[in-house]
């Protein structure tokens, strides 16, 4: 990852261009929200959706729109914000373009803790296992981070992936043993674990809302200081940034964002990987732009995947985590191919 370039990125024209891009993303997101409310197993025409939205009459369509599709869409937005932002934060913090919740084993950690919550403590509702999910995220993130060091070199980038793969394998197997031993948890677990916005009770969206907002607020507060972090610890310190403090706050923000969204939707992979990369291609390496773009791009990816999942395999649905994995795994492959090509030169 490179430092923010100075000459072109601060010119008024590029700022205008980036702001325009931000508005374009807002428009795209709004369109997807409408699609997400309009598209589903029961076809409801767009004017009826609109009427149900502005003047709910208590009819069947209004109930579907308000009780099912609105909470689902809101959940999609929140999960997208959580995953997109936490992915961007991880990449900023580790200075590693391959850092993402799924690849680093953080999803496996959250899943392991949630399974413990379900099987040992008999917790089956969101408000109970959100704490376990966050604890799992925090513990695995700290472990991977410690294991792989913080040199920012290309060796360390590979390490991070390998440590993540090892942790995923280890915790995944432990999760497997528990879910098999306690087959009651398996049926609910197998749908949680693929990552889905479907079948979540409407309250989940409202319960996860404050957690995501708090995390996003912390990211906003950190904002520009992440740029100093991207330059390396020494330069950052010389610029007057309290590195340790920024790092600790970032870890808390990642835990809130990633743990919250994972508890709500299950481990949805690859959003945290794709979003910051796509965004960086558009706006360059300045975190003050990457973060707001990620806030919008995350929900766009999640909602689009969710909509695709709803219509691609009728009469059933494809879980959003599977769709993002189908899209995201080739992105990972592309990044890996590009990276190893660069390092071989």
């Amino acid at each position, binding site marked *: 990852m490179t430092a923010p370039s100075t000459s072109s990125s601060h010119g008024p024209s590029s700022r205008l261009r980036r702001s325009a891009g931000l508005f374009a993303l807002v428009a795209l997101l709004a369109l997807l929200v409408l699609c997400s409310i309009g598209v589903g197993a029961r076809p409801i025409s767009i004017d009826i959706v609109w009427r149900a939205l502005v003047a709910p009459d208590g009819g069947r369509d209004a109930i579907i729109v308000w009780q099912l599709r609105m909470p689902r869409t809101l959940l999609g937005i929140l999960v997208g914000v959580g995953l997109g932002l936490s992915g961007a934060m991880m990449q900023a913090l580790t200075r590693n373009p391959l850092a993402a919740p799924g*690849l680093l084993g953080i999803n496996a950690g959250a899943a392991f803790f949630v399974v413990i919550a379900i099987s040992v403590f008999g917790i089956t509702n969101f408000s109970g296992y959100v704490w376990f999910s966050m604890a799992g995220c925090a513990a695995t993130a700290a472990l991977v981070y410690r294991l792989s060091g913080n040199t920012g070199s290309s060796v360390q980038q590979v390490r991070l992936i390998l440590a993540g793969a090892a942790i995923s394998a280890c915790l995944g197997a432990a999760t497997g043993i528990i879910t*098999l031993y306690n087959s009651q948890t398996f049926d609910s677990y*197998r749908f949680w674990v693929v990552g889905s916005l479907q079948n979540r009770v409407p309250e989940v969206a409202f319960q996860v809302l404050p957690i995501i907002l708090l995390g996003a607020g912390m990211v906003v507060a950190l904002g520009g200081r992440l740029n100093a972090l991207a330059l390396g610890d020494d330069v950052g310190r010389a610029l007057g940034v309290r590195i340790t403090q920024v790092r600790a706050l970032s870890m808390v923000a990642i835990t809130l964002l990633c743990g919250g969204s994972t508890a709500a939707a299950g481990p949805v992979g690859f959003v945290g990987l794709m979003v910051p990369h796509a965004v960086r291609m558009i706006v360059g390496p300045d975190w003050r732009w990457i973060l707001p773009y990620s806030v919008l791009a995350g929900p766009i990816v999640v909602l689009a995947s969710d909509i695709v999942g709803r219509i691609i395999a009728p009469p059933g649905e494809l879980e959003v985590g599977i769709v993002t994995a189908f899209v995201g*795994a080739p992105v990972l492959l592309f990044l890996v191919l590009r990276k190893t090509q660069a390092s*071989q030169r």
Partner: protein
Amino acid sequence: MTEASPKLNRTTWRPLPGVALPYQPRSLWLLAISLIAITALVIATLLTGEFTLSPSGVWQTLTGQQDDSLANLVVLELRLPRILACLLVGLALGLSGAIFQGMARNPLASPDVVGFTTGAATGVLVLLLVEGFAVTASLSVGAMVGGFGTALIVYLLAMRRGVHGQRLILVGIAIGAMLAAINSYLITRAELESAQAARIWMHGSLNGVSWPQVLPLLLWSLILVPAAMALSRRLGLLEFGDDIAAGLGLPVNRSKTQLIVVSITLAAAAISVGGPIGFVALAAPQLARKLAGTGGIALLPSAAVGATLLLAADLLAQRLLAPFQIPVGLLTGALGGAYLLFLLSREWRRVD
């Protein structure tokens, strides 16, 4: 992450004029100790369990003098094929991993890390869920097709003027992630009952292995183990690096292709019987290398250690939470993942 070049602390046995068989004395010790451990584990597996038999009873059953039909069933139809399956699967995985690690010159290269196992599982899952559970023979076909297909894709993508070890691993992880998505998709499409069964298979388990599954594996082993041995000298040369191996007159690319074919066939044969049992292929060659004190990868010790590991893990999986049977692949996954973490952290500390 590349291995140190192999030490040549070898002794040569010349049984006939013109015949020279180099061997490493410590490897022989390791083989002997593995054999003793295997014997002990086999005896323990035969004697313990829900249905207990006295040693003399087991002996009578094995020699065909047992009148109790239940004892005959338990020993001859349940425990014996399972033991043999453990031995052969462990051996195949250990050998497959050893070939792979030697060839990629990277201790992390193994069929499971680079996604072949996931691919083989995809092949089997497609058969299981599309075709139903009918034929066990077709499962091995699914595993072979899936494994080889994945291998081909990974190999082609990772190839850039020769295969670079680290690139192979990262490409394999990416492809594996994609296949894992496909696998979880296939499982959610199934009914709960077949999803549960497919998932148990995906964990890797030797529960209920019977003779019709073990015999094809035996056949494969009889073909592939000698093939691997015949290639072992080429593997030894490849461990010096492609350039040196080519300089010494080895046809590098052809040798690699042959080695990959043998390695993946071994892994696929093992997977078709036991499901994707993780980390044996990763850990066995490394343990063998440390225990035997050889610098490079040694094939026979790796195979022996693989068989020992899997026998021990399966015994543990059978008895640890009895009567619940842990799929042995989960046990090796949990232990092996921890071992991999340990391996990584130690290696990195040394590098730093």
